[in-house]
C-alpha cells in the first residue's frame, strides 16, 4: 500500500513535466531509411522529415490518419490505431509512387483497414 502511494505521488509529480495520459505512440519508418522522404501528415499535422528514417510521435488515443502529399493534395496512406501507452509501427515505402504504407498487423473490417500495434 505504501509503495502504491509512493508510486502514485511520484507519478503525480512527474505529470508536471510529463505528457498526460490518454496517449499512445506512432512510429513511422521510412524504407529505405536514406530515401528522400515524402511529405507526410499525421491527423493533419505536417511531419518533419524523420531523422535517420524514423519518427516517433505521441498521439491521442484513437485512430490517426497518415497522409502523403501528392500533386498538391493530401492522400490517405493508412489509418493507425493508437492505444494508450502502446506503440504502433508503420513502414512507408518511400520508393513507390505513390508511397505505400505497410503495417506489421492489420485490424478493422473490409474497406476500413487499420494498422494496429
Amino acid at each position, binding site marked *: 500500500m505504501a509503495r502504491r502511494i509512493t508510486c502514485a505521488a511520484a507519478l503525480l*509529480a*512527474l505529470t508536471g*513535466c510529463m505528457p498526460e495520459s490518454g496517449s499512445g505512440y506512432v*512510429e513511422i519508418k521510412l524504407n529505405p531509411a536514406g530515401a528522400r522522404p515524402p511529405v507526410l501528415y499525421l491527423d493533419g*499535422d505536417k511531419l518533419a522529415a524523420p531523422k535517420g528514417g524514423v519518427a*516517433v510521435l505521441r498521439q491521442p488515443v484513437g485512430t490517426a490518419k497518415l497522409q502523403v502529399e501528392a500533386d498538391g493534395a493530401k492522400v490517405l496512406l493508412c489509418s493507425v490505431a493508437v492505444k494508450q501507452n502502446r506503440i504502433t*509501427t508503420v513502414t512507408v515505402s518511400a520508393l513507390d509512387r505513390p508511397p505505400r504504407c505497410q503495417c506489421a498487423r492489420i485490424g478493422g473490417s473490409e474497406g476500413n483497414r487499420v494498422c494496429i500495434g
Partner: protein
Amino acid sequence: MFEAHPHADRRLVVMLLASLLAASTFVLLPRTLLAQTETADMATADDEFSRQLRDLKKSFGEVARQIEDGAQIIDRTQDPEQGRKSIQELRNHVGRLLGAVADNGEVSKLGAKALSRADEKLRTLEQETRFKPDEKQFLIDKWRELRASTEAANRELDRARRDFAELLRTLQTNEDYIDELLQIREHEKALVVIHQLTDGIRDASTKLQKLLGAIKPPGA
C-alpha cells in the same frame, strides 16, 4: 541688434552640453544594447531547452528507480497475473518517458529550434561588420560552442527516443504473449516469459542511467 543675454548664453551652453552627452550616448548605447541583445538572444534560444533538459534528467532519474523496482517485482513474482500487471505499470512509465522525448514533444521541438537559432546566428555573425574583429570572433566562437552542445544534447534525445520505443515495443509484445498464455491457462509458461523479461528491463534501466549522465544542457 543682438544684445548679450547672460541667461540665454548659459542656456545655450547647457543645451550644447546636453546635445553632446546625448550624441555620445547615442553612439555608445547601441554597442551596449547589442551586446545585451546578443546575450539575451542566446539566453532565450537555449534557456528553455536547457531548463526542459534539466527537468527531464530529474524525471528520468525517478523513472529509472521505478523501472528497477518493477524489474525486481517481476523477477520475484510467482503469480503471472501480478507479473502481467507489473509489466503494464512499467509500460505506463516507459510510455511517459517516450512522450517526453517524442519527435513532436516539447523538448524535441525546443531542441530543433535552439539548433536552428544557433545556425542562424552564426550565418549573420559571419557577415557582421559592426564589431571589431576580435569581438566578432569571440561571439562566433561562443555560438559555435553553443551549437555543438545543442547538437550533442539533441543526439542524446534521439538515442533516448529509440531506446524507449524499443523497450515499449518489447514490453507490449511480451504482455500480449503473456495474455494469450493466460487465456489458455499456460501459467507456468507465462511465468517463464515474465522472468525472462527482467534482463531486458534491467538493460533498459542501465541505458537510462547512462543517458542521465550523457545529457548535458547546452551552456552547462
